[in-house]
Structures are given as C-alpha cells and as structure tokens.
C-alpha cells in the first residue's frame, strides 16, 4: 500500500498525470471507433456489397452466396488482421517507450521490424513452404536479432546512447537488414514473394494466420496490461522503480519478451510497417496521462483504429491497386517524428 502512496507522490512531484476517467472514455470510445472502422472497412471494396448483406454475411453466413464469401474469406480476416497488427505495434511501442524512457522508441525505428522481415526472407529462401506457425516463430527471432544488434551497439558505445543516437543505430541496422533481405530475395529469385512484406500490407491475411497469430497477440497484450503498473514505475527511472520495490531486471525481461512477440507477430502478417508504435503511444499518453495502466490498453485500441483506417485508405487511394500501408503511415509518421526530434526528445 505504502508503495502506491509513494508512487502517487512521486507522480505528483514530477507533474505527471493519470486521468482514469478520460482513460475509460478513450477505451470505450476507441472500441466503438474500432468497431465502426472495421464495419466501414468490411463494407468497402472492389465488389459493391450493401450494408445489409455485409451484416448478414457476418452474422448469418451462407457459404452459397458470393458476396458472403467475399466478406468472410477476404475482407473480414484482412480487417481483423489490420486491427491486431495495429494493436501489436502500438502496444510494443508503448512498452518500449516506457521501459527505456526513450520517446523515440518504436519497433520500426529500432530495427525490430527489419529483423523480423529479414528472418522471413531467410525462411522464404531456404525453407520455402514453411507453415505460418513456424514463420511467426522465426519472426520473433528476427525481432530479437534486430533489437539485439541495436541495443548491443547502444551498450558498447562510449557513455551509452541517447534516444536520438539509438534511432541512428536503428536506422543503420534497418538499412543493413533490408539490404541483406533484398540481396537474399534477388539471389533466390523470391523478390516477388517478398515485395509484399517489404512494402507492407494486410491483403494476404487468412483465417489460418489469424488463428495462429491472435492468441499470441492477445496473450502478449494481456501480459502487457498486467505489467503496466511496473512499467509506469520504470518510466520514472530505474532508481525510483528500485526504490519502490520493483524487480527491474525481471520486469524488463518480461517486457522485452512481450515486445518481441508483438513486433514479430505484427511483421509476420503486415511486413515492415513503421511509425505506428511511435505515434499511437504519444497520442494516447497525451490524452490519458502518464499512467501505463491506461496507456497500454488505449494504445492497443487506437493502434487498431489507425491500421484499419490505413488499410482502408490503401484500398481507396488508387483502386483497384493497393497502396502499401507502410508508405501511407509514413506520410503521417514522418512529420510526427520530426516534431518529436525538434522537441529534443526530453519529455516523456
């Protein structure tokens, strides 16, 4: 009990805020927004299907009807995949930002996504036809590889790395891993298969993929929510967290595992999409305050909304062609990133 009193004192002292009421509103509002976004996204596509049919396709599925098949087999898994991917990326970004106290942390910027995509390239080249269940495991490994190199460089650098320099290391690791993936792809003539992952898109998502990926993602997000209180304390600084009786090593270990699972699972579906894990936690934090008990679930919902909408836009910008989601999100992500770097990355 006293720990939580001390915590709230510490929070007050730093002018940090927690807004449970707004947090609840955001969660409920975000959920409603997500459901509406999913509804719109399922209804819009190359084949014109009216809302009534969509409704009956989802709730009274009749496999004999073509529109029902389109909704159930193509659009629904894809849209749900987009929501899960968004939630994964946003939550992994928010844990990273909280744990490392680095406002520029994002699985895309720090090389995790490129690592996962690199491992997928290796899988496609050397083990073609590997089932999705193994692909996702390799994606976890890849995310760990990317993160390992970036933070490894960070730890051997003189005097440690500042948030900004960590991003520079991430950019270089990403450049390296992307170059290697492309090299492997060209060498093994699988560039066509991989182009999809490199550009980012959820169009290929199938129910089988969701069946395997969803449990991982949901469990990891649940784990993140369980950890969220400790992450709030970590975000106040290691000393504070230790002083308040937190086992920082353990928390960081679990947090890292969750980050890797989420980033790997997301990349195995969507490819290397950046900036979601950067933008969403910042926006959520701005709305709900600095309490990760609200930031993490809020990020999950808002991340889902963002990627579902991005996927919708990807289909609408230039039909019937699909614009890569990664490119669309970068258009929003880049100005946001510039704004953060201008602020100097001090506030968190």
């Amino acid at each position, binding site marked *: 009990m006293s720990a939580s009193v001390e915590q709230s004192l510490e929070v007050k002292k730093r002018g940090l805020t927690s807004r449970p009421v707004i947090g609840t509103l955001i969660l409920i509002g975000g959920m409603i927004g997500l459901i509406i976004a999913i509804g719109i996204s399922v209804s819009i596509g190359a084949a014109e299907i009216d809302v009534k049919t969509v409704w009956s396709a989802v709730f009274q599925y009749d496999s004999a009807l073509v529109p029902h098949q389109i909704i159930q087999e193509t659009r629904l898994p894809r849209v749900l995949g987009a929501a899960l991917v968004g939630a994964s990326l946003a939550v992994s970004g928010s844990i990273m930002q909280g744990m490392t106290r680095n406002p520029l942390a994002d699985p895309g910027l720090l090389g995790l996504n490129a690592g996962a995509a690199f491992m997928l390239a290796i899988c496609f080249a050397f083990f073609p036809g590997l089932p999705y269940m193994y692909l996702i495991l390799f994606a976890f490994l890849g995310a760990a590889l990317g993160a390992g190199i970036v933070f490894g460089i960070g730890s051997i650098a003189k*005097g440690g790395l500042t948030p900004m320099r960590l991003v520079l290391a991430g950019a270089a690791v990403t*450049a390296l891993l992307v170059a290697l993936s*492309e090299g492997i792809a060209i060498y093994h003539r699988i560039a066509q298969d991989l182009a999809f992952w490199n550009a980012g898109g959820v169009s290929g998502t199938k129910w089988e993929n969701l069946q395997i990926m969803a449990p991982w993602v949901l469990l990891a997000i649940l784990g993140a929510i369980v950890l969220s209180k400790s992450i709030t304390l970590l975000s106040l600084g290691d000393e504070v967290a230790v002083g308040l009786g937190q086992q920082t090593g353990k928390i960081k270990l679990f947090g890292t595992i969750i980050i890797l699972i989420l980033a790997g699972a997301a990349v195995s579906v969507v490819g290397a999409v950046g900036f979601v894990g950067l933008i969403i936690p910042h926006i959520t934090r701005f709305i709900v305050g600095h309490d990760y008990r609200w930031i993490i679930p809020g990020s999950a919902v808002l991340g889902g909304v963002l990627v579902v909408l991005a996927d919708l836009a990807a289909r609408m910008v230039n039909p019937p062609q699909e614009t890569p989601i990664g*490119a669309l999100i970068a258009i929003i*992500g*880049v100005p946001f990133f510039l704004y953060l770097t201008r602020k100097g990355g001090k506030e968190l």
Partner: protein
Amino acid sequence: MIDKPYVSTYQQSRQKRKIYTILLILLLTVIAFIISMNTGFIRLSPMELLETLLGMGTEKQNLTLFEFRLPRIVISVLVGIGLALSGCVLQGVSGNALADPGILGINAGAGLAVVLFISFFPTTSDVPVLFLPILAFVGAGVTAAVIYALAYKRGEGITPTRLLLTGIAIAAGISAAMIILTLRLTPDNYQFVAVWLAGSIWGSNWMFVLSVLPWLLILIPYVFIKARVLNTLNLGEVTATGLGVNIEKERLLLLAAAVALAGASVAVSGGIGFVGLIGPHLARQLVGGKHQFVIPASAAIGALLLLSADTIGRWLIEPSEIPAGIVVSVIGAPYFLYLLAKSKA
C-alpha cells in the same frame, strides 16, 4: 598560409607516403576496372579484352565491351567519386562525422525529382537525359534546404544528431511518397522506383556518362581548390574568421557544391548511401586530416568502392544482378554503426 618555405625531410617523407597511398588506391581502382570489364555473362579473356580495346575485337565483343560494360563502369567510377566528395565536403562543412548525402536524405530528394521526371517522359529519348542532373540538383537542393530548416532550432542552431535524424525522416517520407506517387502511374514506373530505391547503376549508356561528366568536371576541381578553406573551417568558426575566411559565404558555396555532386551522381545511379560516409573516413585514416590529401583519397576510395560493389553485384548471381546500393549498404551500415559506437555521446 600554412606551407613554409622550408619543409623538413620528415614532413617530406610523410607527404610522399600519403601520395603513395593515394597512388596505391588508384592502382587498385584500375585493377578493379580491368576485373569489372571481364565480369559479366559473356566472358572475355584478358587477351580478347586487350584486342577489343585495341579495336581488333569481333562485333559481339565490341558491343559487349563498348556499349554495355564500359559506360556502366565509367558511371560507377564517376558516381563513386561524386558521392564520396559530396560526403567529404558535407562532413567538412558541418563538422558532422556521420554526414553522407544518402543518410542525410539529399539523395532521396534528387531521386524524387528524377522519378517524377521519368514518370512523365520516356527515358529513351536523349534530350531528357541531359536534363536529369539539373533536375536532380534542384530536387537535392530543395530537400537540403528543407532538412536544414527543419533541423535548425533557434538558440541551439543545428546539432549533428538532429540533422541526421531529420535527414533520415525526410528520406523515409520521400521514399513513401515515391511509392505512392508511382503506384498511380504505370507498373513499369513502379519497377523503376523499386530499382532506384535499391540503388542500381541504371543509367548505363554513354548518354548518361555525357550528362554527368560536365558537372563533375566543374565541381571536382572546385572542391580541390577549396581544400584549404575546408581545413580552416575544421579549426572552428572563430579561428576561421580570424584567418580571414568569409565563413557564411564559403559554407554556402561548398554546401551547394556537395548538393550538386550528390544530385548529379544520383541522377544516373540509384539511391546509393554510405559511399559518402566510408570514402572520407577511410581517407582520413589513411592520409590524415588535411583536405589536400583527404579529397583526392576520398575520391579514389569512392570510385574503388562503388566499382567493386557494382562488379560484385553483377558477378554474384550472373546473369541477374544485385544492385550496387545493396552491396554498399551491407558494407556501409556496419561501418556506420562502428563509427556511431566509437563517437562520443
């Protein structure tokens, strides 16, 4: 100014060593040149190569060597020189050890201009090719100005890290914009952008050589002449002003030269990064900090690096090829990480 009438034998021998080092790199470049002429789907033995060069080759050999391989090799060399010198000047002017036209996003800006142009005009006609470097220069210049403005903060000026981060972000944004824009055009253009982003030496006929050559012929001597100014700028603003250098003017001119070098290079190659980073760094390690030596050494290393990368890329998976930019990234990114870890926080 710095040279004294009396130069000790010690200094003389050191200078000689530096000159020998540069000559050695040049020799390696020539060897790479010869190997590169030999590399490709159609094999040419050294004897055949010599015969062809002397004008006694068969029609097929002539075609292979003079129309396909030589222009590409010459372009690799020119682009390597251009990018390395651009990086050298950028590092010298900004005092930022990690500066490189690719990392800073200048190449991406040039690329956007080129890609837009190519999307609207057919590549095959010869007139547009000559315009490419001008366009690329405009694109690179606008991008450089935007990056500079965004990285500038009142009271703090420009920190090296923020400059790099801004550049990386702008490059990411431009790549995204290129993908979105070209998707609206034709599949061929999409293919072109994909190839461009991967950094392939795509402009491989004599027309492209002709279009970059004038730029390099003007800019390279200019950078050589300014070696001393770069030395003084490295001593810090106060010292440079004290030595009678008009800092703002010289900086602006040199930056323009760096942007033009990057733009002209990128106009005929893809978005190749890291050459401008590696070239000057290796050069400084080999010949010390004086720009009189660093500039020629950087140029030679840049040429060697890109020519080798292109040759390796062609040789690795004949008859297909891996873009030179990918090969350079595989070498360059770890080098960047090494420099980042070594530099002070």
